[in-house]
């Protein structure tokens, strides 16, 4: 379990800088370094076991559904990488302590750094594919934060975004690849996956999985053609570049290839893809590096080139090449990190990174210069330094491979060519910066940096030397155990000595050295040649591609989502037609076997009236008042139809709702234009008519098909239980208040909410009112005709009586709380129409809002009442009582429920209509005034 502490310590360490930042920079750095130092120590304790070739694994179950465990694995490869991450990480912490200025938020920086360190450790220690991916993506995120650390700087923001987009995309591909591997193997457990190499390689989806995983690796490791983000990530503070972009994060891709080497490598496909990608990257990076005037730009391309080199090695598929790759990982990390740190010092001390201005710094900072020169020499592959050793192994391997068949000879040649450029740009780094005349126009006078800022470089350069001189002693064990992990079984013999005799590889090195010097010497001609090509700034290209995508998206979106409701509705109807039409086309018979009702003349005429009225509504829809009248006719006929087809309750409801709706629409008519302009083109009308007729046809067909079919239904239950179970003879009403009282409860809730919502809408509503009618006549001055007033007033008690009648009989006969409520409401609305709001207001002091709440509460409490009898919500109760003289009568909880319905309906309707009325009690302009 102690394995968990290795990533966990830095994870906890994220908090350390945040809390210690206020205690000064040095304390903050120490506090930050504590956790990784401890983790490093912990790991070193594990070293003997790892060097013995053991694989330490610690697992905790996490998400079984995802096959995801929290599982860590420490083998040679993980050990090597973890060592780099923690070791260089500690040096970076020290370095950053001096690098960051007092304006920078050190706490935040260290916190991001620790987050990154955790993620990196997570990747290399993961023993579960999904977990590995989790940490993989976390590096993308934390590196985004680190690159954009100076976020006021546009380059920083854009560079970070680009890095995130590219590595994020790769990460997504990787996820797909890993899940695919998991599906092939049946487990995400790395130990199992690594043992299932043959299964994976033999699977038909292997190419897909391989490509996906490699996409992840290549994007992360800045392989061609995904390399372009790395130079722009150099906008990051230099400690970040040194850490992420040389030593660790970009190596995550390499790590991935190494990690999956036993599972994925060894096929032709692997060799071709990885080798060619590596080769292209190697060449491109080496060549481009030479032309970069920016110090960090040069190092960035150099990094790309070296990453290509390692990739190439891993691609060759031979065991020795893999070992060479691992060795070069170590070497590159040491010399490149130190070079970056040196570049950071130069930048820090001079205020520029432009090599055209940086000249002759040797005089100002000899100590730094020396360190940089040793590291650069290692980068160039100068003997006695570590870079030389791995490069030599590389050359040797290029000579042994047969990747490209008869063209395989090209690989050593191209490798040498890359080495030539590598020597050239290393030389440029040394000569152009530290010698080559006097500095040009530097913002600051350079001098040596603080003492401890150089310590990390000294350590790394020392390592370069030590490894270069005593390779087997220093890294032998490390390399061996890592190779063991990568190769999965036996490690072949390899020699870590400085001298392998005078062989072809050495010749290649010597040629590279010589030609490199020649090229650097003639660099001006080469620069001139290169300057003929327009320099494409990847950032600009990337940004413009993104801009292009964004603009395209905007265009697509504006085209489809043009804000036109008519289009949206049209699509909705098309969808309905599409979905319904397909099954209907397969329907064999429309007419079912059920006996149909005979047609009669009266019904026919009524139907004709209904259809004519409906069509008239459409034809006259632009004269809104007329369409309202025809609409009323439709409503009337529908009510009569309900009555005709034995649904008296429905007829009553439809009638009362109809009136309220008409009143509402008339109110709307006053505040809306009274006519509709002719807007639709004939084509549009035809289109709309087409889809409307289609939908109409579909609904009619469905309706006919259903009505003519016989079927089963639960309805008999209601008929049978209405009286004995629900205590009422009106089955419809018993369903409403008892069997499905819950629906009714919901329904009054809807009505209540609608009223509240409408009241909310009316509140502070701006209205425009027509000053006269359609023909421009003034409205009459007689706002409340006397006769109407007088009669309405006497109708009110009568209407209330009818309400009471309808309400009380509802349970047994057509009627009920809802209809009664609407009758009451209509009667009161008639008072509003006849007398006006001003007259009613002081005479009818009802708080409709309260009434709605009380109405719904009465129904709810009636429902809850059954809890006392240990029955579910809305369980009804009824009984028959006998009183002398009066006779038998029934009491039922349904009546209380219905009372709630009644009150809600009255209150909601009035809240809506009465408040609408209030809108115009203020002055209304006449036609003349408006002119």
């Amino acid at each position, binding site marked *: 379990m102690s394995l968990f502490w290795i990533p966990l310590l830095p994870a906890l360490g994220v908090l350390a800088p945040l809390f210690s930042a206020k205690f000064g920079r040095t304390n903050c750095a120490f506090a930050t370094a504590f956790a990784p130092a401890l983790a490093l120590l912990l790991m070193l304790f594990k070293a003997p076991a790892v060097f013995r070739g053991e694989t330490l694994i610690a697992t905790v179950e996490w998400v079984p559904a995802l096959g995801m465990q929290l599982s860590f694995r420490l083998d040679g490869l993980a050990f090597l990488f973890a060592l780099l991450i923690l070791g260089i990480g500690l040096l970076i912490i020290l370095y950053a302590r001096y690098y960051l200025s007092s304006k920078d938020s050190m706490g935040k920086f260290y916190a991001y750094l620790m987050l990154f360190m955790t993620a990196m450790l997570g990747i290399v220690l993961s023993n579960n594919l999904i977990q590995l991916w989790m940490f993989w993506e976390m590096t993308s995120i934390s590196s985004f934060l680190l690159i954009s650390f100076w976020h006021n700087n546009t380059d920083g923001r854009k560079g970070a975004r680009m890095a995130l987009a590219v590595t994020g995309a790769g990460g997504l591909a990787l996820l797909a690849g890993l899940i695919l591997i998991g599906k092939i193997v049946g487990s995400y457990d790395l130990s199992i996956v690594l043992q299932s190499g043959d299964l994976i390689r033999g699977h038909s989806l292997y190419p897909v999985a391989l490509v996906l995983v490699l996409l992840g690796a290549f994007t992360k490791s800045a392989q061609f053609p995904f390399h372009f983000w790395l130079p722009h990530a150099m906008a990051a503070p230099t400690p970040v570049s040194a850490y992420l972009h040389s030593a660790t994060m970009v190596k995550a891709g390499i790590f991935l290839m190494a990690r999956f080497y036993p599972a994925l490598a060894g096929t032709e496909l692997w060799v071709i893809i990885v080798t060619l990608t590596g080769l292209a990257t190697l060449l491109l990076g080496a060549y481009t590096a030479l032309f970069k005037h920016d110090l960090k730009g040069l190092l960035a391309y150099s990094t790309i080139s070296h990453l290509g080199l390692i990739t190439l090695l891993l691609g060759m598929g031979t065991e020795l090449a893999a070992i060479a790759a691992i060795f070069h990982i170590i070497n590159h990390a040491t010399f490149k990190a130190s070079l970056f740190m040196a570049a950071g010092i130069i930048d820090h001390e001079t205020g520029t990174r432009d090599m055209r201005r940086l000249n002759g710094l040797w005089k100002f900072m000899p100590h730094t210069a020396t360190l940089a020169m040793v590291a650069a020499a290692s980068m160039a592959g100068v003997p006695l330094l570590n870079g030389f050793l791995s490069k030599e192994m590389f050359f040797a391997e290029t000579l042994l491979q047969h990747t490209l068949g008869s063209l395989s000879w090209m690989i050593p040649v191209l490798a040498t060519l890359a080495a030539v450029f590598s020597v050239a740009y290393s030389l440029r780094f040394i000569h152009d910066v530290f010698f080559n005349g006097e500095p040009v126009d530097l913002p600051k006078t350079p001098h040596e940096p603080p003492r401890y800022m150089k310590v990390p470089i000294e350590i790394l350069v020392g390592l370069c030397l030590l490894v270069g001189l005593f390779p087997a002693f220093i890294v032998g064990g490390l390399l061996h155990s890592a190779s063991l992990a990568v190769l999965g079984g036996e490690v072949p013999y390899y020699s870590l000595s400085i001298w392998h005799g005078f062989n072809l590889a050495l010749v290649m090195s010597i040629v590279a050295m010589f030609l490199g010097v020649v090229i650097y010497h003639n660099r001006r001609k080469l620069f001139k040649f290169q300057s003929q090509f327009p320099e494409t700034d990847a950032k600009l290209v990337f940004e413009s591609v993104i801009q292009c995508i964004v603009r395209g998206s905007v265009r697509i979106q504006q085209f489809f989502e043009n804000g036109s409701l008519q289009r949206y509705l049209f699509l909705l109807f098309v969808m309905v037609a599409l979905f319904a039409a397909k099954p209907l086309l397969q329907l064999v018979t429309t007419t079912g076997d059920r006996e149909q009702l005979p047609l009669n003349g009266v019904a026919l005429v009524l139907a004709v009236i209904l259809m004519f009225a409906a069509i008239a509504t459409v034809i006259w829809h632009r004269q809104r008042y007329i369409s309202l009248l025809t609409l009323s006719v439709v409503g009337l006929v529908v009510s009569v139809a309900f009555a005709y087809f034995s649904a008296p309750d429905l007829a009553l409801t439809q009638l009362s709702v109809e009136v309220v709706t008409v009143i509402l629409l008339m109110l709307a008519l006053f505040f809306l234009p009274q006519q509709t302009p002719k807007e639709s083109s004939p084509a549009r009308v035809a289109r709309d008519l087409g889809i409307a007729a289609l939908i109409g046809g579909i609904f009619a067909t469905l309706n006919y098909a259903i009505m003519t079919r016989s079927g089963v239904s639960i309805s008999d239950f209601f008929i049978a239980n209405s009286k004995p179970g629900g205590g009422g003879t009106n089955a419809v009403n018993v369903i409403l208040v008892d069997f499905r009282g819950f629906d009714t409860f919901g329904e009054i809730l809807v009505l209540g909410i609608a009223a509240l919502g409408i009241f909310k809408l009316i509140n502070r509503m701006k209205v425009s009112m027509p000053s006269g009618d359609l023909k421009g006549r003034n409205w009459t001055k007689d706002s409340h005709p006397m006769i109407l007033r007088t009669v309405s007033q006497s109708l009110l*008690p009568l209407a209330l009586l009818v309400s009471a009648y309808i309400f009380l009989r509802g349970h047994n006969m057509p009627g009920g709380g809802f209809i009664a409520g609407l009758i009451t409401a209509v009667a009161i609305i008639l008072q509003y129409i006849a007398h006006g709001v001003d007259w009613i207001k002081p005479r*009818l002091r009802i708080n409709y809002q309260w009434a709605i709440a009380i109405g719904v509460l009465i129904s709810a409490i009636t429902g809850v009442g059954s809890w006392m009898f240990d029955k579910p919500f809305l369980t009804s109760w009824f009984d028959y009582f006998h009183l002398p003289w*009066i*006779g038998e009568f029934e009491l039922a909880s349904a009546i209380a429920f219905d009372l709630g319905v009644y009150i809600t309906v009255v209150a909601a309707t009035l809240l809506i209509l009465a408040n609408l009325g209030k809108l115009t009690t203020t002055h209304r302009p006449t036609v003349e005034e408006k002119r």
Partner: protein
Amino acid sequence: MLAKPRFRWLPMPYHSMLLFVTWLLLNNTVAPGHLVLGAFLALGIPMLTSGLSQPQPALHKPIKTARYALMVLGDIVTANLEVARQVLGPLDQLHPALIAMPLDIEGDLPITLLASTVSLTPGTVSSEVSQCRKFLYIHALTMTDEAELIATIKERYEKPLMEIFSC
């Protein structure tokens, strides 16, 4: 003369009576239970709505009222037959007219009743009451003599109504 509520619990006795009868009509019954319920509603509803009603002249002659109602019913039957003939017959024999009938009767309810009677009896529709409540504009489907029509209405309908409301 305006009727003042005589009892607090019976603000509109005629209304209450009317409601009670209506309740029994609605239920087609004189069962005791409904008598109680009807009485309760007949008392309760006016109490609820009394706030919303303007005081009106009281009915003083219930018997005269009934007689008036029957007379109007009779007029409706005879006039309807006459008008039906006119409607179905040649239209060019119709001589419509808009007339203004001076009103002697006062008060909202009496005027309303008169206007309603005029409208209910076929052949005439009360179209407008002048703001001063002194004239009733009537449209007649066909009219031979204006004075005669006015006199008939005044004699047959306005006078009894004035008696009923004693104004």
